[in-house]
């Protein structure tokens, strides 16, 4: 081969944009997190104090709790239901195709649009309560977005509604890699539906399953838009998520150092979870 090398110049534009606008700000966030700063006055070095304060912050604790609850429930439901749906539409027919198209629609719409639609349904003076009143069930009318418990449930429902089709598609892609001969072999051996699922489908879709789990965990840990529009974190701080809390502390309260500390912890947590899942996945693949 000719020693006519590809110049480093090919990487330079991407390197500059990526480094200046993404990597340097991340380092800045680490630096800010060791300081007390409102973004304008002189910085005051605090060492790890911001990080210690995280553990005493009741408001943040509530945001973490909300995020964890939302994440666990949504991750489990969209993955179980997503796989179930994928198996139902895993046939080559017009009917399956139409269902696939329908289930995927919510995922292509902007979270802003769907949040407003759901807000109009779930608000106190919204469509759901309107229907209940018309049906003569006024005692069932509730302030769904106005109390912590019901509001979190509402956020969970919207998020499941939004991402279910996406996870169905991820599982569908995984299912389509399973060779049909294996199912036939299983039938010959006298296996029933459950055997086929447990011994053929499940082991072979583990890579796809890991991707689906990883995507749902990362998506839920970053939850912001739906909360911002449907409840704006309220009532009070009751329905805040971690990202909502970071934005509110950083942009509204000008606590640049403190909000940076929270986002650094979130960054490290997501990094650790990603590495853990990718590792677990590659181990499973080796075993097979």
């Amino acid at each position, binding site marked *: 081969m000719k020693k006519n090398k590809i110049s480093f110049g090919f990487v330079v534009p*991407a390197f500059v944009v990526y480094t200046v606008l993404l990597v340097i*700000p991340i380092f800045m966030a680490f630096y800010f997190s060791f300081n007390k700063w409102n973004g304008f006055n002189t910085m005051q070095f605090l060492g790890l104090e911001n990080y210690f304060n995280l553990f005493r912050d009741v408001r943040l604790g509530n945001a973490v709790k909300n995020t964890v609850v939302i994440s666990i429930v949504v991750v489990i439901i969209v993955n179980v239901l997503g796989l179930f749906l994928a198996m139902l539409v895993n046939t080559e027919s017009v009917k399956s195709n139409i269902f696939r198209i329908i289930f995927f629609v919510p995922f*292509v719409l902007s979270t802003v649009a769907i949040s407003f639609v759901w807000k109009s349904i779930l608000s106190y003076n919204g469509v759901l309560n309107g229907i209940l009143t018309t049906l003569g069930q006024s005692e069932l009318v509730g302030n769904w977005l106005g109390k912590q418990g019901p509001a979190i449930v509402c956020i969970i429902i919207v998020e499941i509604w939004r991402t279910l089709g996406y996870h169905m598609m991820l599982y569908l892609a995984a299912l389509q890699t399973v060779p049909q001969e294996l199912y036939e072999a299983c039938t010959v051996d006298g296996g029933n539906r459950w055997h086929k699922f447990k011994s053929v489908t499940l082991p072979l879709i583990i890579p796809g399953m890991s991707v689906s789990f990883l995507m749902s965990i990362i998506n839920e840990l970053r939850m912001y838009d739906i909360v911002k529009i449907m409840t704006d974190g309220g009532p009070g701080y009751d329905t805040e998520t971690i990202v909502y809390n970071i934005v509110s502390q950083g942009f509204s309260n000008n606590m640049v150092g403190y909000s940076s500390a929270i986002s650094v912890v979130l960054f490290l947590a*997501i990094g650790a979870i990603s590495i853990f899942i990718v590792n677990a996945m590659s181990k499973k693949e080796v075993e097979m």
Partner: protein
Amino acid sequence: MHSMKGKARVVNVFQTICLLLLAIVVILPIYIAVANTFKDSSIILDQPLSLPIPATLENIISVLKSPNTNLGEMYSNSIVLMVAGTLLTVILSSLAAYYLARVKTKASGMLRIYFLIGIMVPYVIVYLPLCILLRNMGIPLGIPVLIFVFASGNISFATFMYTNNIHTLPIELEEAAAIDGASKFKTFWVILFPLLRPCTATIAIFVGLGIWNDFQTPLLMGQVKTITVGIYTAVGPYSANWGVVFAYVFFAAVPVIIVYLCAQKNFVNGLTMGAVKG
């Protein structure tokens, strides 16, 4: 044998019922939004599920005439950001990937990992430092800088996709071009880039739709009036006038739904392949 067929049919019917029920749940909110866009606001709460007969364009007109909304400006901002941001991402990432995939040096390997790290960054960590950085550099927040911000956020993913894709292409074509005396850039642009078209389509849909639907970035970086931020700020005063809210949603969602229905295979590939490969 007969009973097995009967059982299979029962299972089939059961499956179809499951799918139908779920499809209704998925469609119902969208139906409510669309149907009520064309109803008088006063009857929405009484008959939210009825068909919009007689249909009224009142809500649509009030959005078009609203003094604090400029739909044309919102659409053009979103389109400029989406097109320019996607183009910039595609150009920067494919060029970088050409080097990363074909040059086998230690530096190249380290650069690959460097670019990969960005995939797992929760973007919320970036907004505030980035705003401060741009302020210190004297760069005003607005459309031009947001184009670069969107590219910076998507370079990781796109470079990764392109690098993997170039690996699957035979190197002989490039060698032949080199013997013919073509420059490296020409080789890339004339020979490699056209072969990457399916990969480019995937990336363009993923990145383009992401920019079009993004709310946090334009909101936090200068309140740039894209379609999402514009609707968010405009709806505020109308928050209980659902007919008008639905009309806004209608304007935000209709372009996406039309494009999705026309190219739904590409959409699904674009949005899921990205995740599967990443």
